[in-house]
């Protein structure tokens, strides 16, 4: 299980290679990656703030929970903070399991927890408006999270 919270960019392809190499018996690997997108053509950058210490603890906790709940051999979570430009990868998760449904569910579960329970906040700064605007949490994200307890 690997959890990293970092300011610098990471190489998704390289991370997946290392992740796969660190598994022995998993026939199924699922990855998720989140990318900064400039949907309206005016995004200067995205600023990600986080709560050092609590962030790492929360991600470790969710990763460990997903590992047990879905019988995962290996779990990886990397999340960036600071200034990110359009096209950059914000974060990734990877899960490895014997069974593809577990690998899918593990990654999906981990993403739901990460979205709504890991202390990250995003601000979008568009060109000409240097103050930026904090991204609002979505009701559907909270709903998705609660579905796992049913």
């Amino acid at each position, binding site marked *: 299980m690997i959890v990293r919270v970092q300011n610098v960019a990471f190489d998704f392809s390289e991370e997946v290679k290392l992740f796969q190499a660190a598994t022995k018996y998993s026939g199924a690997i699922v990855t998720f990656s*989140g990318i900064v997108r400039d949907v309206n053509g005016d995004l200067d950058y995205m600023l*990600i*703030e*986080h*709560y050092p*210490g*609590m962030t790492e*603890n929360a991600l470790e906790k969710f990763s460990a929970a997903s590992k047990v709940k879905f019988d995962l051999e290996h779990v990886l979570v990397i*999340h960036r903070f600071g200034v990110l430009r359009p096209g950059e990868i*914000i*974060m990734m998760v990877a899960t490895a399991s014997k069974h593809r449904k577990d690998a899918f569910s593990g990654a999906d579960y981990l*993403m739901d927890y*990460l*979205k*709504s*329970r*890991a*202390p*990250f*906040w*995003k*601000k979008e700064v568009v060109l000409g408006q240097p103050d930026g605007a*904090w*991204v*609002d*949490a979505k009701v559907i994200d*909270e709903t998705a999270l609660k579905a796992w307890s049913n």
Partner: protein
Amino acid sequence: MKLNLLYFAWLRERIGRGQEIIETDAETVTELIAELILRDPGYAAAFEDISSVRVAVDQNLVDFSTSLASVREVAFFPPMTGG
């Protein structure tokens, strides 16, 4: 008692700082918020809509009714938007 307070995202911006150490007798998070609001308009603005505020004591997400007994760090922030 001494408490280390942390503020993130727009709570930090409204309060005008990200961290401070205060001396308080507040017994719960709710009492602490009530005390902070009286300080200045920045705090009042930050805690205006309490449904948009989340709190962690010693890095665990909790309810506002949580006791502050033996707590060292309290963090206030908006709903999280990672991923």
